[in-house]
């Protein structure tokens, strides 16, 4: 039984990772592997779509901290989109909006990358 999954799509040269289910210390390594795949490019542009994510613990949130410094150093970014209020409340509580763009739609996130070119 899988309690977590990640689906990859692209939108205007941005990698969109849609996460579903429960992201905790057990499932966080799955997300880590997926982000690793798409961060190994010259300028990673990643949006994580939280619409179907029902739960996140600090282990899941920690995955974003693992990658953000490296990705920003390559002028890329990870943007976070469409969180359910109960999930957003935990990010907000810890102050993640200080470091991450957290937006209401995937389109908003893609626009923020300003991606009309590669």
């Amino acid at each position: 039984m899988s309690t977590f999954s990640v689906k990859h799509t692209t939108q205007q040269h941005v990698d969109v990772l849609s996460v579903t289910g429960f992201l905790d210390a057990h499932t966080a390594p799955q997300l880590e592997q997926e982000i690793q795949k798409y961060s190994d490019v010259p300028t990673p542009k990643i949006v994580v779509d939280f619409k179907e994510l029902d739960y996140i613990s600090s282990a899941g949130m920690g995955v974003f901290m693992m990658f953000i410094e490296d990705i920003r150093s390559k002028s890329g970014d990870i943007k976070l989109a469409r969180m359910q209020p109960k999930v957003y409340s935990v990010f907000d509580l810890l102050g993640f909006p200080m470091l991450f763009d957290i937006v209401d739609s995937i389109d908003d996130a893609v626009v923020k990358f300003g991606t009309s070119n590669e």
Partner: protein
Amino acid sequence: MTKLSRTYPFSPRSHRICVTSDTSELKKIRDFIERTALQLGFAEQATYNIALAVDEACANIIRHSYKHDTTREFCLEIFVEQSCLTINIIDNGATFDPLSLAPPNMKEYFSKFMKGGLGIPIIRKFIDEIRYQSADSDHPYNVLTLVKRLS
């Protein structure tokens, strides 16, 4: 090693669960906490927050007290006493007192791209009272007690 579930003096009034020290058990623990807290009258958001705090505490036991040794076991007992929901998380691994760690300064945390250490701030935020009793010769169990007031 003697099973905790057979030796620990659980409160007769408690709901309880014992699991192996494996992160695959976290979902089962959250389900247990949610089911019990809802049954005891907590609102949905409060229940979600309590389950998250307990998840963080249990993930620390798996990682720090048992170092991912999946042959070990820990237990939770939960009961209502004096308008408080009390959750005891019991292990017999290495002592790991979450109260001994200073909470991170989050501005510094983000400006320096720090990693880890976010579980305990979550526990502190959502739980009203936290106590830790480390194992000794008279009481060979570490017990982390999380108390949430019914409000």
